[in-house]
């Protein structure tokens, strides 16, 4: 056997021993080879919207579903009041994360504010918990908005 062959065997052994180390083994055979969505499924779902749905999770789907009411009812330029972080989870909507207004705009194309945002008094719609999901409801008056803001200001995460 030539020396090059010995070196080849050495290289194979080095690679095998390297990936016998538990951390690297888990990384290669878990994280790389078996991602949370199997490669076969990834090839099946190539549409950008499916890919977004898989990566951004259920909150993203819920945001899109919620804002579809604006398109259906042809509502122009709504400004959505988002609840504080953690509020929805504490109200039983365990699968929904509250995002920042910038992220919300990226996901949906609709403007949003937090209760601490400048210009919050302009909000015309509010994202509120509904059973285990969320829904958008119209803010009917200044009093209605103040009530919501007071609830959010006094909210203490559990």
């Amino acid at each position: 056997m030539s020396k090059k062959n010995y070196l080849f065997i050495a290289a194979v052994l080095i690679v095998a021993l390297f990936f016998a180390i538990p951390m690297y083994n888990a990384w290669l055979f878990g994280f790389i080879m078996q991602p949370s969505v199997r490669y076969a499924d990834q090839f099946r779902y190539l549409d950008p919207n499916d890919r977004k749905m898989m990566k951004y999770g259920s909150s993203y789907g819920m945001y899109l579903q919620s804002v579809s009411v604006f398109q259906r009812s042809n509502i122009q330029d709504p400004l959505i009041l988002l609840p504080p972080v953690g509020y929805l989870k504490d109200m039983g909507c365990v699968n929904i994360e509250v995002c920042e207004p910038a992220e919300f705009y990226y996901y949906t194309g609709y403007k949003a504010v937090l209760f601490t945002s400048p210009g919050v008094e302009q909000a015309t719609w509010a994202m509120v918990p509904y059973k285990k999901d969320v829904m958008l409801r119209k803010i009917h008056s200044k009093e209605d908005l103040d009530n919501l803001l007071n609830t959010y200001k006094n909210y203490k995460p559990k």
Partner: protein
Amino acid sequence: MNFLGLIYLLMAHYVSGRGVLRLFRISLQPLTTVCLSFIIGVALLSFVPCFVQLLHIPITFVSIVIGVGLFTFALSIPSLITVKQPVFKKITFPAGYEWPFIAVISLVMAVSVWRCFYNPPLARDMLTGPELLAEYAVREHTMLSSVFSIDLSTSNNYFKSPYITGLQIIYKLLVCPFGQLWLSVLSLSFIIWMYSLVRSLIHPLIAGFLMLFFMVQPDFYAYTYLILYDYSNTVFFFCGFYFLHRWYVEERQLRDFAFAAFLFGIATYIRTETLVLVAMTAPLVLFFLYRMHIPFKKMVLYKSILILTSAFFYLLCIDVFVHNFIPIPFDLHSQLNPHLLDISPFFRRLRDIITVLIFSKQGMKEYGYFIFFFCGLLLADTICTRRFNSWAKIALYGILTVYIGLAFLGYLLPLVDLPNTTKRGFFKALPLMLLYMANSGLLQRLSGKIRKWEAG
């Protein structure tokens, strides 16, 4: 996916990068030339949407295609002027025993490219900053889009360099809806170049092992497909050190030094804090100049080139792009530490980088055993061989610069936190560690023995 658009951009990256290499009259090995051309070309094309916007031309598919074409043509002029008969050198393929390493690295990089293409941008820093700006620039044909009419009070990511915004606009318009593939161009070029560099310094068997070790650092690997600034910043910062070494040890020509300054400048354009790290290379450069017996006037010239190039890119980023494209005032003072006389945060950060970031469970999860191996090797070299070649010395200086520089940035700018900014900033030390390993006295000794045995 638009393959024609991708091919057009790959050609544009290569030609524009090659033009800049020719402009600086940098002559390298063919593979290194190709890889560096792509790396530089990626950064250069990020300027195109900014220029299109500065000229008040709507950002559309056509305007970007023409903009990329014109920009590439302008940058290729140095190549066109000095066009030479191409010399086709004999291609040397890797030896058979390198293939087990190459196979694993290729597999891991194939997965990286796929994820880069398949997954949408994910990092919160992107979705509230460059990616958001790019998405709406594409939809509304202007970088001054409706994004600036929404509530941006929860983030300052839109103040960051237009590097990613520019590249995302180009790739979204010309290649695929999530953009991002420019990162694969950059990371593949960098990995191939690093491998060829390491194997030129040490026996390929050891080079393959070191490269594998370098590649499989979980966190560093993740940023080969997650778009953020730090991977690109690391690549250009390393390139700067490479050419600094080349200038001092191999060529001693001003052009290599100027090119190193240019690469540090690009790194500063990508992450403006890099200016501090570039300034910290000053003692090394002064030492080199002193050893080269350069007269004082020339010393000043060299120092000015290094600092002013990075300062120019800093001003380009902050005063031209941020000023023109972000209609919100940028106040640097509000970001500075108001208690500068209290230097305890600096020492605390120095300690935390070691105890929390590196030598911890979290550190092992993020960097693997790579840094442990580096530290062990450095200790063994210090005890056993006590000989450090020029590459090793420069790499160690670079690592120290990153370590102290990041602690200093953490003290200067409280927003530079440990678990995010400092953690990713530390990436800049990783290729320098790899470079050190390839020049380690002990591994060089082992390499020599393998070569002797192989030849005997």
